[in-house]
């Protein structure tokens, strides 16, 4: 059959096409039979209405009624959709208890009809492919927008049936024509219909491939700017299917600036739409740094955090949390998410019934936590995290301890709040239950270390550790096998615990001292093996010098207890501490000098310190710009010299005074010149130094203050022993 469609008007063309096929009216022109439901925007449903009626009349009329043929009655029963609205179909039923033959046939004939049509659908695939599709393709390419519109409507209908849909997706020309029509039309209905076509085709791989190959992706991305919600929905859903199942789609969407168009859609309020959009963002940004930066540049963090803050639809929250998790490993996105209130928003979803949502939020929070140490408004989150510490889920514990460790880092308010929320007790119980799970223990111990220093409730926390029986468990963590990150955290915690006098005996009873000494000795030996300070030894990512510093610092504070002081000295630690005075690292020097300072309170230890030759390095340390070091060094020297003769004391004083000139070369010069004057009688010198010192101030610790702005005026080499002294040596 030939089709002459070129000149006929649109409706005529469609009519002719229809009549060459099923002989049924699809309703395109007549509007019969089909009803669409757009409530959920996803599926269309078709409802068919049939009716028949029976009635009795007076016999005179019956005669005329019999003029309607049996054929008409059969047709009306079988194809009610062909009966014009309002037509009454007369029945020959005389007795209501007895159905007529036609009535008996009605239902089975309906079933038969459905079966036949079904067969026709599948049987005509080939015909459809060879005949209708090329023609419809031409119609879609027509210049007349009305034609294009009608053709699009028909094709849309066809995509709703599986057989015809398959045929359509096998025609690249057809799919390309749909894509072109969608892009070029200015008619909203056409846009909608063509977007719907692509959406329907995207449920099969063949269709996805056809859309992909026809340049459908850039076209669909453009549709993301449509003012019509239905088009937006078709476009995002189709793109989502492509991203999920079509190889190459991610790259194509990125190239078509898909991210730039998707991120603004986060402002929409349809939650299912948002769920699909956020899932697209996750698919595009996972493992792709550039995509993450594009999302950032287009306000992604704010939009995503706003969703977490606003909605309660679980699937949407879950997909959004997955995007935030992907972005949370990006150093540029992290601060933006935190600044947008991401911590607080994610923290709202840790107590719900959705395990997957809770876990995603926790991973994201943990990733973000090192960028959130200065955030305000963490109260609720901290409270929830402390509560989560009672969980048995290892992932939850890993995250909760890690987040708490970071949020209590250098943050007085957070430390105080966690302490006041029974965080110490919860952390101890976590450590007790964690066994050897280092991913939980390390952050838990770090959190306790933060809580036990540098905030108003530090002492409360130090006491709480003891009260909740934490000390034995914590000291036990120093046992072998050594996991160095945990060791480092534990020695720091022990140091803080020892600040509380009431903890000193329990620490001793738990054998902290021998364990600390063993660690110190081992770490120092390992550090020495590598020779120069430039090569610092790492084990499990921890420098042995850090263990030296930490264990010495813990021993220093423990030495404040009189019994512990004796025990520490008896373990032959003094020679080691004196050696550490030569360390190139200020932190090590400080704790070593501090430990010696405590031990030197005992005369016996003071003598041992002196006999180990500590005076020489201590004299050097008087010149340190670190006021802690200088103070400890001075104190040790005072204590060593307490029982010495006055001349020795004089010398100490002189050396202390010499530290005056560290930042004042002019004063140094003057003092030096004064002392070089010939004929200065020794007996005019009083017991405390040359006359030339008069007119200069006494030693001011201000000159030794650790001021980062202060320039170091002291020239290396101008040490005290380079100065020529006119007074006798001691």
């Amino acid at each position, binding site marked *: 059959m030939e089709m002459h469609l070129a000149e006929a008007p649109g409706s005529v063309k469609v009519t002719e096409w229809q009549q060459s096929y099923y002989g049924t009216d699809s309703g395109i022109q007549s509007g019969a039979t089909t009803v669409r439901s757009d409530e959920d925007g996803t599926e269309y449903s078709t409802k068919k209405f049939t009716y028949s009626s029976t009635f009795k009349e007076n016999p005179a009329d019956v005669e005329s009624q019999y003029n309607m043929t049996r054929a008409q009655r059969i047709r009306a029963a079988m194809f009610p959709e062909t009966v014009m609205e309002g037509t009454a179909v007369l029945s020959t039923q005389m007795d209501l208890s007895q159905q007529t033959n036609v009535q008996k046939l009605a239902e089975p004939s309906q079933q038969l009809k459905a079966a036949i049509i079904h067969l026709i659908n599948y049987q005509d695939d080939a015909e459809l492919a060879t005949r209708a599709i090329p023609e419809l393709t031409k119609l879609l390419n027509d210049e007349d927008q009305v034609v294009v519109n009608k053709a699009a409507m028909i094709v849309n209908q066809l995509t709703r049936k599986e057989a015809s849909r398959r045929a359509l997706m096998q025609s690249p020309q057809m799919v390309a024509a749909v894509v072109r029509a969608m892009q070029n039309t200015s008619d909203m209905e056409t846009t909608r219909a063509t977007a719907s076509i692509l959406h329907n085709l995207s449920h099969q791989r063949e269709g996805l491939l056809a859309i992909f190959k026809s340049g459908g992706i850039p076209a669909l991305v453009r549709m993301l700017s449509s003012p019509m919600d239905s088009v937006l929905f078709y476009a995002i859903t189709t793109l989502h299917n492509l991203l999920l199942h079509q190889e190459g789609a991610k790259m194509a969407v990125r190239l078509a600036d898909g991210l730039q168009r998707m991120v603004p859609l986060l402002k929409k309020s349809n939650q299912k739409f948002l769920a699909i959009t956020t899932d697209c963002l*996750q698919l595009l940004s*996972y493992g792709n740094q550039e995509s993450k930066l594009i999302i950032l540049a287009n306000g992604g963090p704010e939009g995503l955090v706003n969703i977490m803050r606003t909605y309660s639809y679980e699937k949407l929250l879950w997909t959004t949390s*997955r995007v935030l*998790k*992907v972005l949370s*490993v990006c150093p540029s996105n*992290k601060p933006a998410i935190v600044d947008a209130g991401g911590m607080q928003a994610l923290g709202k979803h840790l107590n719900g019934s959705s395990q*997957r949502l809770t876990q995603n939020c926790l991973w994201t929070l*943990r990733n973000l*936590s*090192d960028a959130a*140490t200065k955030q305000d408004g963490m109260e609720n989150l901290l409270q929830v995290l402390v509560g989560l510490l009672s969980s048995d889920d290892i992932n939850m514990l890993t995250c909760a301890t*890690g987040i708490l460790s*970071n949020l*209590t*880092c*250098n943050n007085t308010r957070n430390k105080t709040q966690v302490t006041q929320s029974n965080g110490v007790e919860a952390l101890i119980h976590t450590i007790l239950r964690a066994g050897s799970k280092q991913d939980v223990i*390390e*952050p838990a111990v770090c959190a306790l270390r*933060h809580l036990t*220093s*540098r905030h108003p409730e530090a002492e409360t926390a130090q006491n709480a550790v003891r009260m909740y029986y934490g000390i034995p468990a914590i000291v036990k963590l120093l046992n072998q096998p050594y996991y160095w990150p945990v060791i480092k955290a534990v020695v*720091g915690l022990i*140091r803080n615990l020892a600040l509380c006098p009431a903890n000193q005996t329990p620490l001793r009873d738990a054998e902290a001292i021998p364990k600390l000494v063993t660690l110190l000795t081992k770490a120092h030996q390992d550090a020495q093996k590598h020779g120069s300070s430039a090569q610092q030894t790492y084990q499990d990512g921890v420098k042995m010098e850090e263990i030296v*510093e*930490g264990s010495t610092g813990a021993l220093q*504070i423990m030495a*404040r207890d009189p019994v512990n002081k004796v025990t520490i000295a008896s373990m032959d630690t003094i020679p080691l501490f004196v050696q550490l005075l030569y360390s190139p690292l200020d*932190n090590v020097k400080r704790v070593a000098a*501090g430990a010696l*300072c*405590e031990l030197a*309170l005992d005369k016996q230890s003071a003598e041992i310190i002196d006999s180990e030759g500590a005076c020489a390095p201590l004299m050097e340390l008087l010149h340190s710009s670190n*006021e*802690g070091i200088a*103070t400890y060094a*001075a*104190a040790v020297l*005072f204590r060593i010299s*307490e029982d010495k003769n006055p001349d020795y004391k004089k010398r100490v*004083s002189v050396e*202390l*005074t010499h530290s*005056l000139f560290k930042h004042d070369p002019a*004063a140094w010069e003057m003092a030096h010149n004064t002392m070089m004057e010939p004929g200065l009688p020794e007996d005019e010198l*009083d*017991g*405390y*130094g040359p006359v030339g*010192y*008069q*007119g200069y*101030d*006494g*030693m*001011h*610790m*201000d*000159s030794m*203050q650790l001021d980062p702005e202060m320039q170091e005026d002291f020239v290396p080499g101008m040490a005290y022993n380079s100065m020529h002294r006119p007074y006798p040596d001691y």
Partner: protein
Amino acid sequence: MNREEAPGKSPEEMYIQQKVRVLLMLKKMGSNLTPNEEAFLRNYAGVVHSQMSQLPQHPIDQGAEDVVMAFSRSETEDRRQ
């Protein structure tokens, strides 16, 4: 350096000032003093008084700083549910 504080101070005075300051710093840092050292401070209460205002206001030795742990080094594969 505060040159105006006491021009012409004797070395003995300077020694006392130095020692007072060191001991006050030790106390500030939480360390213990010997009985002799405590007595020394009592003897030179006047110097103690003048030195107290000159001590640095910030804490001196509070142990190692808090350090954050970096958790976001790598992306974890996400099972699609």
